[in-house]
């Protein structure tokens, strides 16, 4: 599978999906007006990856901001990860949030309560 690498822009995050390492990274801002366009290829990639995943898939999500349009697409990404986990593969989602950013911590906890995949909340201290 070809890896995905997308540079960050003012409205979309940096994305690295690497099937050989089993590492998925999303970093930066995710505030596009229409997030489907951006996230659809990522969800499709995971759909393929789910057929032959590594024993462990590590997911690092480090978002500074995301809008509500992205929040649904992020849930779609997590649902794909949930199906990988359900098929008896290890998946770990590391949810990073900046010190004092309670809104971002809460957003991570919202996902954690919906998606049956282990989450780790990691505070970034300056």
């Amino acid at each position, binding site marked *: 599978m070809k890896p995905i690498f997308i540079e960050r822009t003012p409205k979309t995050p940096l994305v690295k999906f690497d099937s050989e390492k089993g590492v998925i990274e999303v970093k930066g801002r995710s505030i596009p007006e229409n997030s*489907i366009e951006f996230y659809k290829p990522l969800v499709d990639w995971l759909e393929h990856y789910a057929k032959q995943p590594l024993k462990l898939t590590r997911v690092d999500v480090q978002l500074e901001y995301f*809008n509500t349009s992205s929040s649904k697409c992020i849930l779609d990404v997590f649902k794909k990860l949930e199906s990988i986990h359900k098929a008896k593969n290890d998946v770990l989602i590391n949810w990073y949030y900046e010190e004092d950013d309670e809104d971002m911590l809460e957003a991570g906890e919202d996902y954690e309560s919906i998606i049956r995949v282990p989450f780790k909340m990691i505070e970034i201290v300056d």
Partner: protein
Amino acid sequence: MSFNITDYYNELSKGDVVLAYKGSITSDLINDILEAVEEKLDEYDENGKTKKKIYNILVESLQNLYHHIEERHEGVEEDLDPKFGVLVVVREEDLYKVTTGNFVNSRKIKFLKEKIDKINSLTKEELKDMYKFILNHQRLSAKGGGGLGLVDIARKTGYKLEYSFYNYNGNYYFFDLTIKV
């Protein structure tokens, strides 16, 4: 007295204005506004938490405008852009006020009123449940809107949303929404 955009805008833009804009709401404009407000907040040396809240709320309110503005303003006499909207951010003593304004057809008033009144009647915990329910059960529209914007705003501010509908002309109303942060 009938509603007048210029008077409305001038009234809003009194006091310590962080940013005031009236005109077409486009994707590029949203970038520009976000960048300008971010710079201003840095100048004010505002703390990180408040900066983030304001930024998030601006993103949601501008994108609400972007997705929901009525494209045709039948009965609007002034020479206004078809994607006309207003955004004003004012700093007061211990809070910021973000106001958006746009034209709506009278058919939409009931829906908007019910939605905002419902949001205003909920506790923080109930808002969280509502957010999670919509997130998990409602599909995104083709335009990318998810019906979550106002719920997210209310969750983040902790203040009630304030709104008014001003009759402009016949079936056209001007919808004013004020968010305190």
